[in-house]
Protein backbone atom coordinates (compact mmCIF):
# COMPACT_ATOMS: atom_id res chain seq x y z
CA UNK A 1 0.00 0.00 0.00
CA UNK A 2 2.80 2.38 0.94
CA UNK A 3 4.60 1.65 -2.34
CA UNK A 4 1.94 3.71 -4.14
CA UNK A 5 3.38 6.75 -2.34
CA UNK A 6 6.81 6.37 -3.91
CA UNK A 7 6.03 9.11 -6.52
CA UNK A 8 5.15 11.46 -3.63
CA UNK A 9 8.47 10.63 -1.99
CA UNK A 10 10.27 11.30 -5.29
CA UNK A 11 8.49 14.64 -5.52
CA UNK A 12 9.58 15.58 -1.98
CA UNK A 13 13.16 14.56 -2.74
CA UNK A 14 13.18 16.60 -5.96
CA UNK A 15 11.76 19.64 -4.14
CA UNK A 16 14.32 19.33 -1.33
CA UNK A 17 17.11 18.79 -3.85
CA UNK A 18 16.12 21.85 -5.86
CA UNK A 19 15.99 24.01 -2.73
CA UNK A 20 19.39 22.69 -1.63
CA UNK A 21 20.81 23.30 -5.11
CA UNK A 22 19.61 26.89 -5.26
CA UNK A 23 20.75 27.75 -1.74
CA UNK A 24 24.04 25.92 -2.23
CA UNK A 25 24.78 27.71 -5.51
CA UNK A 26 23.96 31.05 -3.90
CA UNK A 27 26.35 30.18 -1.08
CA UNK A 28 29.16 29.22 -3.47
CA UNK A 29 28.73 31.81 -6.21
CA UNK A 30 27.18 34.72 -4.33
CA UNK A 31 29.18 37.76 -3.20
CA UNK A 32 30.61 37.76 0.32
CA UNK A 33 29.97 40.33 2.98
CA UNK A 34 27.15 42.76 3.47
CA UNK A 35 27.15 46.14 1.84
CA UNK A 36 24.89 48.96 2.98
CA UNK A 37 21.28 48.24 2.14
CA UNK A 38 21.70 44.47 1.78
CA UNK A 39 19.41 43.91 4.74
CA UNK A 40 16.59 46.03 3.32
CA UNK A 41 13.50 44.21 2.08
CA UNK A 42 14.12 45.58 -1.41
CA UNK A 43 17.79 46.20 -1.89
CA UNK A 44 17.41 48.14 -5.12
CA UNK A 45 13.84 49.31 -4.66
CA UNK A 46 11.93 51.95 -2.81
CA UNK A 47 13.34 52.89 0.59
CA UNK A 48 10.99 51.55 3.32
CA UNK A 49 9.28 54.30 5.27
CA UNK A 50 7.71 52.26 8.09
CA UNK A 51 7.77 48.71 9.50
CA UNK A 52 6.02 46.06 7.46
CA UNK A 53 4.31 44.56 10.49
CA UNK A 54 1.20 46.66 10.83
CA UNK A 55 -2.33 45.96 11.94
CA UNK A 56 -4.51 44.81 9.11
CA UNK A 57 -8.23 45.57 8.72
CA UNK A 58 -10.56 43.13 10.44
CA UNK A 59 -11.92 42.41 6.96
CA UNK A 60 -9.12 39.89 6.42
CA UNK A 61 -10.27 37.85 9.42
CA UNK A 62 -13.85 37.87 8.13
CA UNK A 63 -12.73 36.60 4.73
CA UNK A 64 -10.60 33.92 6.40
CA UNK A 65 -13.51 32.74 8.56
CA UNK A 66 -15.88 32.57 5.59
CA UNK A 67 -13.22 30.72 3.60
CA UNK A 68 -12.83 28.23 6.44
CA UNK A 69 -16.56 27.46 6.46
CA UNK A 70 -16.83 26.94 2.72
CA UNK A 71 -13.57 25.00 2.72
CA UNK A 72 -15.11 22.53 5.16
CA UNK A 73 -18.21 22.39 2.95
CA UNK A 74 -15.96 21.44 0.02
CA UNK A 75 -14.28 18.72 2.11
CA UNK A 76 -17.64 16.97 2.42
CA UNK A 77 -17.81 16.68 -1.38
CA UNK A 78 -14.79 14.38 -1.70
CA UNK A 79 -16.17 11.26 0.03
CA UNK A 80 -19.54 11.99 -1.61
CA UNK A 81 -18.06 12.15 -5.09
CA UNK A 82 -16.32 8.77 -4.89
CA UNK A 83 -19.52 6.93 -3.94
CA UNK A 84 -21.89 9.14 -5.91
CA UNK A 85 -23.06 6.42 -8.31
CA UNK A 86 -23.68 4.00 -5.50
CA UNK A 87 -25.79 6.52 -3.55
CA UNK A 88 -27.92 7.41 -6.58
CA UNK A 89 -30.74 9.96 -6.46
CA UNK A 90 -30.85 9.75 -2.65
CA UNK A 91 -27.27 10.96 -2.42
CA UNK A 92 -27.99 13.79 -4.84
CA UNK A 93 -30.98 14.98 -2.81
CA UNK A 94 -29.15 14.90 0.53
CA UNK A 95 -26.18 16.78 -0.89
CA UNK A 96 -28.47 19.40 -2.39
CA UNK A 97 -30.11 19.78 1.03
CA UNK A 98 -26.65 20.26 2.54
CA UNK A 99 -25.69 22.83 -0.09
CA UNK A 100 -29.09 24.51 0.25
CA UNK A 101 -28.66 25.12 3.97
CA UNK A 102 -25.21 26.57 3.41
CA UNK A 103 -26.52 28.64 0.51
CA UNK A 104 -28.67 30.47 3.07
CA UNK A 105 -25.47 31.41 4.86
CA UNK A 106 -23.89 32.52 1.60
CA UNK A 107 -26.89 34.70 0.73
CA UNK A 108 -26.84 36.16 4.26
CA UNK A 109 -23.15 37.06 3.96
CA UNK A 110 -23.71 38.44 0.47
CA UNK A 111 -26.70 40.59 1.46
CA UNK A 112 -24.86 41.95 4.50
CA UNK A 113 -22.08 43.07 2.20
CA UNK A 114 -19.52 40.80 3.85
CA UNK A 115 -18.17 39.78 0.44
CA UNK A 116 -17.70 43.35 -0.80
CA UNK A 117 -14.32 44.96 -0.38
CA UNK A 118 -16.08 48.31 -0.84
Amino acid at each position, binding site marked *: *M*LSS*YVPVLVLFLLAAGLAALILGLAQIMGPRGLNAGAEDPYESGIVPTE*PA*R*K*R*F*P*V*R*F*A*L*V*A*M*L*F*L*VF*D*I*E*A*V*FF*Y*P*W*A*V*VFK*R*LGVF*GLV*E*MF*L*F*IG*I*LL*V*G*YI*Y*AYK*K*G*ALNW*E
Partner: protein
Amino acid sequence: MDWATIIFYLLAAVAVLTAAGVVFARNPVHSAFALVISFLNVAGIYVLLGAEFLAAVQVIVYTGAILVLFLFVIMLVRPEDLRELNTAPRVQTALAWLLGLALFAELGLVIATGVLTGARGPYPPEEVAAAGGNTQLIGRILYSEFLLPFEVASLVLLVAVVAAVILGLPDRFLTGERARGLSLSLGHPTGADRVLEAERRGVPAVDAPDLGEPGTIDTGRAPVGAGRGR
Protein backbone atom coordinates in the same frame (compact mmCIF):
# COMPACT_ATOMS: atom_id res chain seq x y z
CA MET B 1 13.18 -1.83 11.05
CA ASP B 2 11.15 -1.63 7.88
CA TRP B 3 10.65 1.50 5.85
CA ALA B 4 7.24 2.33 7.33
CA THR B 5 8.71 2.42 10.83
CA ILE B 6 11.60 4.62 9.77
CA ILE B 7 9.25 7.03 7.99
CA PHE B 8 6.97 7.07 11.03
CA TYR B 9 9.80 8.00 13.37
CA LEU B 10 10.97 10.70 10.98
CA LEU B 11 7.48 12.22 10.72
CA ALA B 12 6.82 11.91 14.44
CA ALA B 13 10.16 13.47 15.37
CA VAL B 14 9.61 16.47 13.11
CA ALA B 15 6.02 16.83 14.32
CA VAL B 16 7.09 16.86 17.97
CA LEU B 17 10.05 19.18 17.40
CA THR B 18 7.98 21.71 15.45
CA ALA B 19 5.21 21.47 18.04
CA ALA B 20 7.81 22.45 20.63
CA GLY B 21 8.80 25.25 18.27
CA VAL B 22 5.21 26.52 18.33
CA VAL B 23 5.45 26.91 22.10
CA PHE B 24 8.98 28.26 22.35
CA ALA B 25 9.15 30.59 19.34
CA ARG B 26 9.22 34.23 20.42
CA ASN B 27 7.75 35.51 17.17
CA PRO B 28 4.11 34.40 16.77
CA VAL B 29 4.53 34.21 12.99
CA HIS B 30 7.32 31.68 13.53
CA SER B 31 4.96 29.76 15.82
CA ALA B 32 2.35 29.65 13.08
CA PHE B 33 4.82 28.36 10.49
CA ALA B 34 6.11 25.72 12.90
CA LEU B 35 2.50 24.66 13.35
CA VAL B 36 2.15 24.29 9.56
CA ILE B 37 5.07 21.86 9.47
CA SER B 38 3.71 19.99 12.49
CA PHE B 39 0.29 19.60 10.83
CA LEU B 40 1.85 18.38 7.58
CA ASN B 41 3.85 15.73 9.44
CA VAL B 42 0.73 14.57 11.28
CA ALA B 43 -0.93 14.29 7.85
CA GLY B 44 1.97 12.05 6.83
CA ILE B 45 1.32 9.83 9.85
CA TYR B 46 -2.34 9.57 8.81
CA VAL B 47 -1.19 8.37 5.38
CA LEU B 48 1.00 5.75 7.08
CA LEU B 49 -2.08 4.55 8.97
CA GLY B 50 -4.00 4.18 5.71
CA ALA B 51 -6.33 7.10 6.49
CA GLU B 52 -5.87 9.01 3.23
CA PHE B 53 -9.04 11.04 3.57
CA LEU B 54 -8.09 12.23 7.03
CA ALA B 55 -4.67 13.19 5.68
CA ALA B 56 -6.26 15.21 2.87
CA VAL B 57 -8.61 16.94 5.31
CA GLN B 58 -5.67 17.67 7.61
CA VAL B 59 -3.87 19.42 4.76
CA ILE B 60 -6.91 21.16 3.24
CA VAL B 61 -8.63 22.33 6.42
CA TYR B 62 -5.89 22.64 9.03
CA THR B 63 -2.88 23.78 7.05
CA GLY B 64 -4.95 25.42 4.33
CA ALA B 65 -7.66 27.28 6.18
CA ILE B 66 -7.13 27.30 9.94
CA LEU B 67 -3.51 28.37 9.70
CA VAL B 68 -4.52 31.18 7.34
CA LEU B 69 -7.02 32.26 9.98
CA PHE B 70 -4.28 32.14 12.63
CA LEU B 71 -2.00 34.29 10.50
CA PHE B 72 -4.77 36.80 9.86
CA VAL B 73 -5.47 37.01 13.58
CA ILE B 74 -1.76 37.64 14.19
CA MET B 75 -1.90 40.36 11.55
CA LEU B 76 -4.84 41.98 13.35
CA VAL B 77 -2.90 42.37 16.57
CA ARG B 78 -0.58 45.29 17.14
CA PRO B 79 3.05 44.13 16.93
CA GLU B 80 3.93 46.00 20.14
CA ASP B 81 1.45 43.88 22.07
CA LEU B 82 3.03 40.66 20.84
CA ARG B 83 6.35 41.25 22.56
CA GLU B 84 4.71 40.45 25.86
CA LEU B 85 3.70 37.02 24.56
CA ASN B 86 6.31 35.00 26.44
CA THR B 87 6.35 36.98 29.66
CA ALA B 88 3.88 35.03 31.75
CA PRO B 89 3.90 35.34 35.55
CA ARG B 90 6.43 33.08 37.24
CA VAL B 91 3.71 31.10 39.02
CA GLN B 92 2.00 30.39 35.71
CA THR B 93 5.23 29.22 34.10
CA ALA B 94 6.03 26.92 37.03
CA LEU B 95 2.49 25.53 37.03
CA ALA B 96 2.61 24.96 33.27
CA TRP B 97 5.87 23.00 33.56
CA LEU B 98 4.50 20.99 36.48
CA LEU B 99 1.26 20.05 34.73
CA GLY B 100 3.05 19.39 31.44
CA LEU B 101 5.55 17.05 33.09
CA ALA B 102 2.74 15.30 34.98
CA LEU B 103 0.87 14.73 31.70
CA PHE B 104 4.09 13.51 30.08
CA ALA B 105 4.68 11.07 32.95
CA GLU B 106 1.11 9.79 32.73
CA LEU B 107 1.27 9.24 28.99
CA GLY B 108 4.71 7.68 29.23
CA LEU B 109 3.50 5.31 31.93
CA VAL B 110 0.50 4.26 29.86
CA ILE B 111 2.63 3.70 26.76
CA ALA B 112 5.28 1.80 28.71
CA THR B 113 2.97 -0.48 30.68
CA GLY B 114 -0.50 -0.49 29.13
CA VAL B 115 -1.93 -2.32 26.19
CA LEU B 116 -2.63 0.30 23.55
CA THR B 117 -4.72 -1.79 21.18
CA GLY B 118 -8.38 -1.01 21.57
CA ALA B 119 -11.36 -3.13 20.70
CA ARG B 120 -11.82 -3.98 17.04
CA GLY B 121 -14.36 -1.70 15.41
CA PRO B 122 -16.94 -2.72 12.81
CA TYR B 123 -14.63 -1.65 9.96
CA PRO B 124 -11.28 -3.46 10.18
CA PRO B 125 -8.64 -2.99 7.44
CA GLU B 126 -10.02 -5.89 5.37
CA GLU B 127 -13.43 -4.21 5.28
CA VAL B 128 -11.85 -0.91 4.23
CA ALA B 129 -9.91 -2.62 1.46
CA ALA B 130 -13.07 -4.38 0.26
CA ALA B 131 -14.92 -1.05 0.07
CA GLY B 132 -12.22 0.25 -2.28
CA GLY B 133 -10.47 2.50 0.23
CA ASN B 134 -10.79 4.80 3.18
CA THR B 135 -12.53 7.65 1.36
CA GLN B 136 -15.07 5.35 -0.31
CA LEU B 137 -16.01 3.72 2.97
CA ILE B 138 -16.36 7.07 4.73
CA GLY B 139 -18.59 8.26 1.91
CA ARG B 140 -20.75 5.16 2.03
CA ILE B 141 -21.28 5.34 5.78
CA LEU B 142 -21.47 9.12 6.15
CA TYR B 143 -24.13 9.56 3.49
CA SER B 144 -26.34 6.67 4.60
CA GLU B 145 -25.97 5.70 8.24
CA PHE B 146 -24.89 9.14 9.46
CA LEU B 147 -27.18 11.16 7.23
CA LEU B 148 -28.67 13.25 10.03
CA PRO B 149 -25.34 14.28 11.63
CA PHE B 150 -24.15 15.20 8.14
CA GLU B 151 -27.11 17.53 7.58
CA VAL B 152 -26.74 18.94 11.10
CA ALA B 153 -23.12 19.75 10.19
CA SER B 154 -24.43 22.09 7.50
CA LEU B 155 -26.50 23.89 10.16
CA VAL B 156 -23.43 24.22 12.37
CA LEU B 157 -21.53 25.70 9.45
CA LEU B 158 -24.44 28.07 8.79
CA VAL B 159 -24.21 29.32 12.38
CA ALA B 160 -20.48 29.82 11.83
CA VAL B 161 -21.17 31.97 8.74
CA VAL B 162 -23.64 34.16 10.64
CA ALA B 163 -21.28 34.47 13.61
CA ALA B 164 -18.37 35.40 11.36
CA VAL B 165 -20.42 38.11 9.64
CA ILE B 166 -21.72 39.52 12.94
CA LEU B 167 -18.23 39.55 14.47
CA GLY B 168 -16.17 40.60 11.51
CA LEU B 169 -18.29 43.13 9.70
CA PRO B 170 -17.87 46.76 10.75
CA ASP B 171 -21.02 48.28 12.24
CA ARG B 172 -21.67 50.68 9.42
CA PHE B 173 -22.63 47.77 7.15
CA LEU B 174 -25.41 46.66 9.44
CA THR B 175 -28.72 48.42 9.14
CA GLY B 176 -30.94 49.82 11.87
CA GLU B 177 -30.23 50.81 15.46
CA ARG B 178 -31.04 47.38 16.81
CA ALA B 179 -28.61 45.72 14.46
CA ARG B 180 -26.00 48.19 15.67
CA GLY B 181 -26.63 47.21 19.25
CA LEU B 182 -26.31 43.51 18.40
CA SER B 183 -23.06 43.87 16.53
CA LEU B 184 -19.76 43.30 18.26
CA SER B 185 -17.46 44.13 15.34
CA LEU B 186 -14.48 43.05 17.44
CA GLY B 187 -14.64 46.32 19.35
CA HIS B 188 -14.50 48.63 16.37
CA PRO B 189 -17.65 50.64 15.67
CA THR B 190 -16.48 51.53 12.17
CA GLY B 191 -13.88 48.85 11.63
CA ALA B 192 -10.26 49.08 12.76
CA ASP B 193 -9.15 50.76 9.56
CA ARG B 194 -11.46 53.74 9.92
CA VAL B 195 -10.76 54.22 13.60
CA LEU B 196 -7.03 54.27 13.10
CA GLU B 197 -7.16 56.56 10.09
CA ALA B 198 -9.34 58.95 12.06
CA GLU B 199 -6.91 58.90 14.98
CA ARG B 200 -4.01 59.56 12.69
CA ARG B 201 -5.71 62.65 11.36
CA GLY B 202 -6.64 63.78 14.84
CA VAL B 203 -10.35 63.42 14.20
CA PRO B 204 -12.45 61.77 16.94
CA ALA B 205 -13.23 58.25 15.75
CA VAL B 206 -16.96 58.59 16.20
CA ASP B 207 -17.21 61.41 13.67
CA ALA B 208 -14.83 59.73 11.25
CA PRO B 209 -15.81 60.61 7.71
CA ASP B 210 -15.76 58.11 4.89
CA LEU B 211 -12.10 57.87 4.07
CA GLY B 212 -11.74 55.82 0.93
CA GLU B 213 -9.56 52.71 0.69
CA PRO B 214 -8.93 50.78 3.88
CA GLY B 215 -5.82 48.78 4.61
CA THR B 216 -3.24 51.43 3.87
CA ILE B 217 -3.39 53.13 7.19
CA ASP B 218 -2.53 52.33 10.82
CA THR B 219 0.14 54.18 12.67
CA GLY B 220 0.19 51.35 15.21
CA ARG B 221 -0.09 53.86 18.05
CA ALA B 222 -3.83 53.88 18.54
CA PRO B 223 -4.95 52.55 21.92
CA VAL B 224 -6.71 49.21 21.99
CA GLY B 225 -10.43 49.47 21.48
CA ALA B 226 -10.15 53.04 20.30
CA GLY B 227 -13.50 54.61 19.61
CA ARG B 228 -15.36 51.89 21.45
CA GLY B 229 -18.74 52.48 22.98
CA ARG B 230 -20.50 55.07 20.97
